[in-house]
């Protein structure tokens, strides 16, 4: 059975073990018209506490890579280590929290009960769960909505609940697959600012899949640019915009932000020269 650990074991995080270490990873899918090479020769390292975005046009395998790190899919070859353990072990240890493009809340559970779901599954007692969900809902600014049901919330609020749920086990790694992809631009920017704050407050490393250049620039320490068919890492852009936790809306109008956006855009276009250029 899985662990009931609710606090990160102290000392392990700063032992220099990277949050994610991917080496020589390949992934092929069998489709109706033969084998499709989804990922080829991926090497990726994410340090503890680091915010790394995966960006690339549709079909570059960025979501597949994230799902492999989460052990929701198996690699064809290559190695994936999460905090020094294998990906399946990391999943069993609840080493990461995950959020998808859809909030994926359970409609019959209240907001608080949704946040408490992972804790409940791992045998955390009721009063401890209550305290933790109250803390988390406070963190995402939804305290007064604890007793509501998901269908009473807007899309942005639902996504914030999903993020709170991903943080429930105090993971030191957050895996996020286009979590703001379905939100309108205004909500999206607000959510980005909040995520920057939350990731700094929790100190968790984040692997963030997106196809938005500005989103990647605003949030990340590093942006890993990928190209499709087969999915490969072409470049890594270091944004150099200072600590993620100190990024506010003012940064969106800062020349350094535009520089980062330009650097990512050029890397994307170089990677998919003559390609579809679907990234926005």
């Amino acid at each position: 059975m899985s662990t009931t650990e609710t606090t990160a074991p102290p000392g392990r995080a700063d032992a220099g073990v990277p949050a994610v270490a991917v080496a020589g990873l390949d992934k092929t899918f069998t489709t109706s018209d033969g084998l499709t090479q989804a990922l080829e020769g991926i090497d990726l390292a994410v340090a503890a506490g680091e915010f790394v975005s995966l960006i690339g046009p549709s079909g570059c395998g960025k979501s597949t890579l994230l799902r492999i790190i989460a052990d929701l899919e198996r690699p064809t070859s290559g190695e994936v280590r999460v905090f020094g353990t294998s990906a399946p072990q990391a999943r069993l240890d609840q080493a990461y929290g995950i959020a998808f493009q859809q909030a994926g809340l359970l409609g019959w559970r209240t907001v608080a009960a949704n946040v408490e779901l992972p804790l409940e599954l791992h045998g955390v007692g009721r009063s401890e769960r209550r305290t933790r969900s109250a803390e988390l809902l406070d963190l995402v600014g939804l305290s007064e909505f604890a007793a509501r049901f998901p269908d009473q919330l807007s899309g942005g609020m639902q996504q914030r609940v999903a993020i709170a749920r991903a943080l429930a086990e105090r993971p030191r790694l957050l895996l996020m697959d286009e979590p703001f992809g379905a939100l309108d631009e205004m909500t999206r920017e607000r959510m980005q600012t909040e995520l920057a704050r939350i990731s700094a407050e929790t100190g968790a490393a984040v692997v963030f899949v997106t196809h938005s250049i500005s989103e990647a620039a605003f949030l990340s320490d590093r942006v890993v640019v990928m190209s499709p068919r087969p999915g490969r890492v072409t470049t890594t852009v270091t944004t150099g915009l200072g600590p993620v936790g100190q990024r506010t809306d003012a940064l969106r109008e800062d020349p350094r932000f535009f520089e980062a956006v330009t650097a990512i855009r050029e890397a994307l276009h170089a990677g998919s020269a003559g390609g579809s250029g679907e990234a926005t």
Partner: protein
Amino acid sequence: MSEHTTATAVAERTADPAAALTTPPHERTGRTRRVLMGVLGVFAVGVAWEAYKFIGPDDGVVVAGVRILPRTTDIAMPHLWDMAVRLTEPVTRAEGADLLWVATAKAAAFSLGVAALSWVIGVSVGLALALLMQRLRTAESAVLPWVVLSQTVPLIALAPLVRNWGSRLSVGPISWENWMSVAVIASYLAFFPVAVGALRGLKSPDAIHADLLRSYAASWWQTLIRLRLPASVPYLLPALRLAAANAVIGTVVAEVSIGLRGGIGRMILEFAQSAAGDPPKSWAPIFGAIVLGLLAAGAVALLGLALRRYRRGEEPA
């Protein structure tokens, strides 16, 4: 992204926390109207009955040798008030005979008990099959065709078989009784909608939910309890309702085929034989059967009410 916009609209409409928790007044008047329309519908059937009896020819309406509307004699179509009065009189002229409505109620209660048992058996078997089919894909392709095929066997053909097999069974002092045969036969009708509905329900969660539970390292059992069963409620309730109707019909028909005394099915048969001499009497068990069906449907509706938390996405039926 219409889903998203409606969600926003809902959140805006319910910005006042108290507003979301009270029933809107238009919904309440809607409910009153539905009840009223229901009563009116029953009343309309009664009026149609008496109206046709009044204006229709005694020998019914015959077109090209085929009677397309029934006779309107007191034997074929007793007055509604005669049926009502008859209910308050004793079943027979024998000393100490029950009043007709009491006898009918007793028979209905007996049949309801058997039907309830067959519903429980049917629902259990249906759920077990659905779980098996959900768990093992090979089981689905192996079992599902048989489940569908099973319903093509007529109940009447089954009755003697079940009775025959049952009569050879005895566990210690407990021997097989006819009412057990009836329950088994009725459950044979009841399990089918549950097996099919529950399978659809168990498979209904989105891929994202399955991924999420997997990321939590949840076991199959935990996934079943926390995700698959709750998600299957909207599919399960109509199946349970069908199963209840099937259990009642199956019980009444099987009582006739097996020849089980004490229930509504047998009563319908017995009273029909005395229809010539006492026409309103034969209608009593028919009303009994209707009440039986309503009780069964009502019980499932109560269950639906208890499970309404799991039906939030549903349109009000």
